[in-house]
C-alpha cells in the first residue's frame, strides 16, 4: 500500500500533512484496550450499580415512562438493514428506510389529527424549541407565550434556544385553588398580544392535568393569532381529543412512550406535526411519495430546499441526523398496538390511574395537588419531605414517583410527588404502592415530629 501511495511509512502520511507543533507527541492517557468479554463485564458491572425499572416497582414518569416494549420492536430495530445505513441520500437503495419514514409520518398525522408530519426530531423539549423557531420564521414576532404547565425541561430548553434566536419567553401561571392545576385562562389571554409569535401549552400538562385545549386555542386565535403549539403525550391520543381537532397549529412531543426504551433519558425521538400551511417551514427530514422511471411507486426525501445542506444559513433548522431508528420503533409499536389497541391501552391507563389516585389521595398526610381530570399521571402533595419518603419507599423496592421540586426548583412544588402509571403496573402493584407510601409518609411524619420534639 505504502509504495503506491508514495511514502515510506504511515507516519510519513501524517508528517507531510500535520505541522509538528500540533502533533501529539505522546500516547493518549487512556486505559489499555480490553478484549470484548472484559468490556462486556465492565459495562455489565456499571449497569449493575443502577436500579432499573426491572429491579423495583417504578412509578416514575415526567416525560419518560416504563411502558412495555414488544419483542418485535427490538427484533426489527436490530436488523442490520435498519440499524447500519445512514440517511437515505440514495433513495434507490433506501426504500426500506424511506417507506418507514412515510408510514411513521402517516401514523403521527393520524394520532395528532394534523395533516403533515416530519420524519422525527431529537426529543420532546427541543421539539418545543423547534416549533418556536418555526413560529419566528413564520410571523417574525418576538415573544413566546408558554404555559407553566410545560415540563420544566421544555421551559428551560425553550429559554436556551429562544435566547439564541432573539426571542423572549413569557410564562403563564397555572390556576390555584379548587379549580387549580391548569393554565390560567385569563393570564393566557392577557399574555397573547401582538408580539406573541407562538402560544405553547402541554397536554396533559406536567402535573398530569388535562387542559382545555380547545379553549386555550380559541383564546389564542381570538387574541393576536399566534401559532398555537401543544406538547402532547402521544400514548394517550387513543382516547384524548387530538390536537388537530382542538385548534392546535403545531403538535410536538416526546416519542419515548411509543416503543422506545428509557435509556436513562435517550435516545428517543421527538415528533413534529403541523397544519398544511407550515409544510415548507417545518424542520428536519420529510419522506414523500413518487415514482421511478418504470412507473413503480417509491419514496424519496422531499422538500429538501428547507434543509441545511441546501439552504445553509437560510435553512428552517440546523438538524441533520435525527432519530430514524427510534421513529422505526414507534411505527412498529403503533402497528403492533393497532387502531383498537391504542384505545384499549388508553382506557386501561385511565382506569388504573384513577384507581391509584383515589387510593393514594385517601392516605393520611397525602392529598391531591389538583383535582383536574388526569389520564396516566397525577400530582400529590405530601405532608412530609418527598426525598425522605422516597428513600423509605426505596428500601421496600418501590419508587413512588418523581420529586417535583427537585426537578423544577419551584418553591410551590415543594412536597409534590408525581406518580405515573403504565400498563405494566397492575392493580396488585398499585396496592403495594399504596401500602408502602402510607407507611413511609407516616414514618416520616413521626420521625419529623419527634425530631422537633412535639
Amino acid at each position: 500500500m505504502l509504495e503506491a501511495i508514495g511514502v515510506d511509512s504511515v507516519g510519513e502520511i501524517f508528517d507531510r500533512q500535520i505541522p509538528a507543533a500540533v502533533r501529539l507527541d505522546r500516547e493518549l492517557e487512556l486505559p489499555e484496550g480490553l478484549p470484548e468479554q472484559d468490556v462486556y463485564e465492565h459495562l455489565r458491572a456499571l449497569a449493575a450499580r443502577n436500579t432499573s425499572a426491572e429491579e423495583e416497582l417504578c412509578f416514575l414518569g415526567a416525560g419518560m415512562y416504563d411502558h412495555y416494549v414488544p419483542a418485535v420492536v427490538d427484533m426489527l430495530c436490530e436488523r442490520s438493514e435498519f440499524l447500519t445505513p445512514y440517511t437515505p441520500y440514495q433513495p434507490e437503495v433506501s426504500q426500506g428506510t424511506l417507506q418507514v419514514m412515510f408510514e411513521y409520518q402517516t401514523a403521527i398525522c393520524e394520532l395528532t389529527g394534523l395533516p403533515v408530519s416530519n420524519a422525527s426530531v431529537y426529543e420532546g423539549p427541543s421539539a418545543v424549541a423547534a416549533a418556536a423557531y418555526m413560529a419566528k420564521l413564520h410571523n417574525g414576532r418576538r415573544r413566546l407565550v408558554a404555559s407553566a404547565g410545560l415540563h420544566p425541561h421544555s421551559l428551560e430548553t425553550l429559554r436556551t434556544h429562544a435566547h439564541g434566536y432573539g426571542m423572549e419567553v413569557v410564562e403563564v401561571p397555572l390556576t390555584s385553588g379548587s379549580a387549580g392545576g391548569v393554565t390560567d385562562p385569563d393570564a393566557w389571554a392577557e399574555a397573547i398580544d401582538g408580539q406573541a409569535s407562538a402560544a405553547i401549552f402541554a397536554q396533559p400538562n406536567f402535573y398530569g392535568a388535562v387542559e382545555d385545549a380547545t379553549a386555550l386555542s380559541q383564546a389564542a386565535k381570538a387574541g393576536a393569532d399566534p401559532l398555537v403549539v401543544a406538547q402532547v403525550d402521544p400514548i394517550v391520543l387513543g382516547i384524548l381529543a387530538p390536537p388537530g381537532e382542538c385548534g392546535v397549529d403545531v403538535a410536538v412531543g416526546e416519542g419515548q412512550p411509543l416503543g422506545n426504551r428509557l435509556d436513562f433519558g435517550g435516545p428517543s425521538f421527538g415528533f413534529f406535526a403541523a397544519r398544511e400551511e407550515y409544510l415548507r417551514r417545518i424542520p428536519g427530514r420529510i419522506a414523500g411519495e413518487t415514482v421511478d422511471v418504470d412507473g413503480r411507486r417509491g419514496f424519496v426525501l422531499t422538500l429538501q430546499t428547507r434543509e441545511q445542506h441546501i439552504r445553509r444559513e437560510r435553512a428552517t433548522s440546523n438538524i441533520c441526523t435525527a432519530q430514524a431508528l427510534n421513529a422505526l420503533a414507534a411505527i412498529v409499536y403503533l402497528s403492533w398496538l393497532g387502531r383498537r389497541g391504542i384505545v384499549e391501552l388508553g382506557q386501561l391507563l385511565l382506569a388504573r390511574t384513577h384507581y391509584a389516585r383515589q387510593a393514594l389521595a385517601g392516605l393520611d398526610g397525602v392529598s391531591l395537588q389538583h383535582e383536574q381530570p388526569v389520564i396516566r399521571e397525577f400530582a400529590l402533595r405530601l405532608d412530609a419531605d418527598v426525598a425522605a419518603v422516597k428513600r423509605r419507599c426505596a428500601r421496600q423496592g418501590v419508587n413512588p414517583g418523581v420529586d417535583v421540586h427537585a426537578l423544577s426548583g419551584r418553591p410551590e412544588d415543594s412536597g409534590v410527588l408525581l406518580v405515573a402509571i403504565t400498563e405494566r403496573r397492575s392493580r396488585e402493584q398499585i396496592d403495594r404502592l399504596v401500602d408502602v407510601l402510607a407507611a413511609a409518609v407516616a414514618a416520616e411524619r413521626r420521625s419529623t415530629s419527634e425530631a422537633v420534639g412535639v
Partner: protein
Amino acid sequence: MNLPAPSPGGDGRAPASAGGPSPLQRERARTIFQKGATSRRAFQCPPPDVPEADPDELLPARFRRREPPRLPEVSEPELVRHYVTLSKRNFDLDSGFYPLGSCTMKHNPRLHERAAALAGHARLHPLQDPERAQGALELMWRLQGALAEISGLPHVSLQPSAGSAGELAGVLLTRAYHEDRGEQRHKVLAPDTAHGTNPATVSMAGLEVVKLATDAEGGVDVDDLRVKADTDVACLMLTNPNTLGVFDANIEEIAAIVHGVGATLYYDGANLNAVMGLSRPGDMGFDIVHFNLHKSFTQPHGGGGPGSGPIATSERIAPYLPRPLVVRREDGSFALEHQRPKSIGRLRGFHGNYGCLVRAYAYICSLGADGLRDASEAAVLNANHLLARLCQKGVAEYLPLAYGRLCMHEFVLSGGPMKRELKIKTLDLAKRLLDHGFHPPTVYFPLLVEEALMVEPTETETRETLDAFAEAIAAILAEAAEDPAVAEGAPYSTPVRRLDEVAAAKQPVIRESL
C-alpha cells in the same frame, strides 16, 4: 457482497438485469396501512383489574377522542413480514462498502448493542435518584474524561443530541462568553467548504455567518481571514481536517489571528476520525469542540439517527456549559451538578442520548489509547490507498483529486472532466455504482468543487474492498467511454430505479391516504 453489474444491452440501454425485474422490483410498494383487516391485531390488552368507573367522570366527553386514530390493523406475523421485507429494500453497512464522505461509516461492533440493552442501562429511568444511578453517572463521568483527553480540552458536556445540536451549543457558548464580558459580537466566520449545519446553526443562534475563501491548498485563505477577522467576529467555525480531507497546515496562524481579535475558535468534530491520538483540537488552539459519537465512536447510524454530539471546551468557556454536568464528589460518588449560574441552560430534556454514550464508552474501552490511534492511522492509510488507486490512468484524467496530493481520512474528486469528456455526471456515476453493489460516496459536496465526489473509506475496509471499488469506478468510466447512456440510465438492479424527486417536491404526498 457485490451485486452483479449488468452488461450493456445491444441497443445502448442496459437490460434491467439478466432475468428481468428482481423479486423486490416486482413487489409493488404497499404500506402497512394498506395491509391487514379490520380488528386484526398483535397487542393483547391486560384485562381490567380495577373497579369499573363511569368514563365521563374520569375524562369528560368534551376532552375525549370521538374516532380512534386509523392505525394499522395487522397480526404480528404480518407486521414482521412487512418490515423484514421492507428492510431488504435497504443497502446497509453490514452488507457492503459505504464510503459516504464526512459520515464515517465504520463497522458497528455488536458488543455495543448488547451492552446498551442491559436492563441496568436500557430500563433506567432518567429521573432515578442519582444515588441509585451511580453506574450510569460513573460511565458518563469516565466518558467525559476520555473525550477531554482525546480533544485536549478539559471540560465536557454530553448533553447535545447530535452534531448539529453540539454546534448550536458551541455557538451559544461563544455568545455567552462574549456577553459575559460585556461584548456583543455579531459575526461567525466559516469557510466555504463548511458543512451546511454550520451556517444553519449560526442563524439559529442569532448571529450572521461570513464566508471565508479557500486557498489553493484547500485550507482557509489566511489573507481573506485577516481581512474579515475583526472585533465583531464572535467565532471561527472550522473542520480540521476539513471537508476536502485537507489538514489545514496554517492552523496555528489561523488560531493566532482569531484569538488576536478576541474571538473563539470552534472545531466541528465531524472529521475527528482522522486524528484521534495523533493531533488534538485543544493543542491546535481550538476553544470548543463537538464530537459526533455516531461517526468517530461508531454509533450505528440507524438510517438517520440517533446520534450524539458532546462538546468539550477550554477553561474560559467552561462556566457556560449546558447544565447539568456529571461531577465526581469528594467521597468518590457521582452527581448531576445543576447549580451552574453562568450556564447557557438546557439544550434538551434529561442528560443526553445515554444509550449512545454507553456504546461510545464501550468503543473507547475496547480500543484504548493505541487502538484509537491505530483506527485513525488505518482510516487515513485506507483513504490514501484508495486515492492512489484512483489516481491511476483511466480514472485520474476524468476524476482528478480536487486539492492536495495526499489526504487525511477522506478526499474529494472532481467529476468535471468526466462530465465534459465522457458525458456522464457525478450523479450517473453514483447511480451506476449501486449496480456494482457499492454505496456511492457523498456527491455534490463540498459545493466549491465541480461535480464533487467525497470519499471516506474508514478503517473498517480491507484492501480487497478498496481495490474492488477502484476497479468498479474504472469499469464505469470505461463503459461510459463506450456508451454514456448506460450510466445515465442506472441503476438497474436496485429495488426501484431512478426516482422522480422533482415531482415529489412539486406536489408533496407525505402520508398514506386512508
